[in-house]
């Protein structure tokens, strides 16, 4: 009985300790966030892309964007490089004459839907959301129009309706979030004739991409763009030519955007916490200095006065004793002189 109780208590103790230990383990300081589990993404494979602009067409239809200046089956527009604009969430560019590339190479540009979006991190009104589907969405109903997201985005994707006076919005690819919720494909993926755009779970897409590289080592560059860039993006790229030849930046680093401002923002509470102490300390110091200064001054004055009067007394008495032998008039004369001295002595030292 008693033993069993002791045992029982012992177990309790062990249990308690172990749970504590467990907590410690889980509260490890080096936290790691790997994004929404099996969120979606798209793999763009420019080896399969034929530059037909059907993706632009699909995007245009889904998002009810204005008709383009050149119809989507007019490919002459590919002769010059374009970027995303308020009228086109996605554009395809053609690159000719790239070293050891058979023909023209294409590049599709649209929001990469970062795992840790810079736009979301930079938005001071939370207009951006990284959704569980992988899509990064934007809510124009709260947007103030500060355009900090455009500054922050390393891929220069968000665009702005500069020509709207009162209701300008940021315009950017939404990965067709509403369609995703309905279980449909993004417009561009839907219309792509060659599956140069593959929709799927990001984890699976990375496997697929690796497999393609493994099977056709001399058709692909051995790099999946977006796997790690800026902490990883939901949109991934395979290419037959170096990404830099397609104007895709390879110097972005792998640091997710929130990490970049972490330190600076972290210092805010520190300053708020410590400045008051420091500053009031300074204040106290300066006050004290003043006080001491004042006291010293007063003291000095007092002592000076005292000294002066003392001297005066002494002189006076001395003169008197000397004066005994002299006659009255002499005495008076001397006395007057002495007093006079004292007087201007005092005026001298009194001030």
């Amino acid at each position: 009985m008693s033993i069993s109780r002791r045992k029982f208590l012992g177990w309790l103790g062990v249990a308690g300790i172990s749970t504590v230990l467990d907590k410690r383990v889980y509260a490890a300081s080096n936290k790691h966030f790997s994004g929404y589990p099996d969120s979606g993404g798209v793999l763009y494979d420019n080896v399969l892309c034929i530059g037909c602009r059907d993706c632009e067409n699909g995007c245009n239809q889904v998002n009810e964007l204005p008709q383009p200046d050149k119809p989507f089956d007019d490919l002459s527009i590919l002769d010059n490089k374009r970027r995303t604009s308020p009228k086109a969430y996605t554009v395809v560019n053609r690159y000719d004459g790239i070293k050891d590339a058979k023909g023209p190479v294409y590049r599709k540009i649209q929001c990469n839907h970062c795992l840790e979006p810079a736009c979301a991190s930079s938005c001071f009104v939370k207009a951006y959301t990284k959704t569980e589907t992988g899509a990064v969405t934007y809510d124009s109903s709260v947007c103030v129009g500060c355009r900090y997201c455009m500054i922050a985005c390393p891929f220069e994707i968000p665009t702005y309706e500069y020509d709207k006076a009162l209701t300008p919005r940021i315009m950017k690819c939404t990965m067709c979030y509403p369609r995703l919720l309905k279980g449909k494909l993004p417009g561009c993926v839907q219309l792509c004739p060659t599956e140069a755009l593959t929709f799927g779970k990001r984890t699976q897409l990375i496997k697929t991409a690796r497999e393609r590289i493994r099977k056709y080592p001399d058709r692909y560059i051995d790099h999946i763009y977006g796997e790690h860039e800026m902490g990883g993006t939901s949109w991934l790229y395979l290419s037959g030519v170096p990404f830099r030849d397609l104007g895709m930046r390879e110097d972005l680093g792998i640091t997710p955007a929130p990490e970049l401002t972490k330190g600076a923002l972290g210092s805010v509470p520190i300053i708020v916490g410590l400045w008051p102490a420091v500053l009031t300390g300074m204040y106290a110091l300066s006050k004290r200095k003043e006080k001491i200064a004042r006291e010293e001054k007063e003291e000095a004055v007092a002592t000076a006065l005292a000294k002066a009067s003392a001297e005066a007394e002494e002189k006076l008495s001395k003169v008197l004793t000397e004066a005994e032998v002299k006659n009255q008039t002499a005495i008076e004369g001397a006395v007057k002189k002495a007093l006079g001295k004292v007087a201007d002595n005092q005026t001298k030292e009194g001030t």
Partner: protein
Amino acid sequence: MPRESATASKTVLSSFDQALKDLVKALRETFISPFGFVYIIIILLGLILTILRFTKGLAGVTNLSDYNAWGIWIGFDLLTGVALAAGGFVTSAAVYIFGYKKYHFAVRPAILTGFLGYALVIVALNYDVGRPWRMPYPFILQQGTTSVLFEVGACVVLYFLVLFMEFCPAALEWLGLKKLRKQLIKLTLVLTIFGVILSTLHQSSLGSLFLIAPSKLHPLWYSSYLPIFFFVSSVFAGFSIVIFESALSHRFFGDKMDEALQKGREDLALGFGKAASLVLAGYFAVKIFGISVDNHWHLLGTPYGIWFLVELLGFVALPCFLYAVGVRDRNLTIIKWAAICTVIGVMLNRLNISLIAFNWHLPSADRYFPHWMEIAISVFIVTLGIVAFRIIASMMPILHDHPDYND
């Protein structure tokens, strides 16, 4: 008792219409003056452009693009404006916290400029931002707390209030509201400390704004030290602008200055000059450390590197040296020039980071250059500030102590 109050209210009333008289006088002085005409022209133009801005949108008046989302309204009006408005917190800190009582006369002008400076920054933002009326959203609707801009916004607004309260006494003296003024005066120290805290936060955060774009800002300017650079530079910017200002106001408002201020000017220039010189030296040092920790020495040989050196040597090292010489020789002219040089330097630095060295990787075709209307609007806003300063300075006890109040 009732009689007293009656007399009190009478005096209040009298001081009120006195104030009104002052106002009218001030307005007349300001606009019917050699500059008056220029002011009016600029303000009229500004109003026209304002209409354009809010009817045609940003596209109507700016050269902003999808690559260059921020122009001079941010680079100059916001960044430079805030940096140069640092005079307020620097001076009040020096006087009320560090106990340099002898500079007390400089506090009010500095506070006023700071106050107006921030006011103008806010005005400018109303032009730059897409939907100005939504500016409170981040604070009342959804708090984007991960954003550096959120912190900047919050601090700027709060500090603006602080400056307002610090400025109030002058206004209240003008209006003759003694009691209220007394209450405010009591708050001086608290306000000052708040001011320093908030300034530290947002001055540095303006630098942090760019931490999120390492791939766009030229490596020589991008550094994890950006917030520190911005704060430190704001400090010597503050010192310099105060020196510069006192020189100016001596020139223009000599008549409104009491002899205390006249005498104090030299003192101030020497004191602040020495301080600025030291801070500049420190800034110079940390900038160098900034290069060495990122090992960007090799970039100094490139064109951008030369430009960087121009900024660092011409507008940091040089004024630092000038200040030192000026202080040694007790030479106000040198100090004044040092101050000017520093102010330009800070301006240059802010423009470099926000415009010139930003998006440096883009082909020149995609780079930004301000539209004349953008510049015009900036000029308009600055003019508003100057006018406001003139009016207020000429009717309120800013550059001189009010006879009734001697505490």
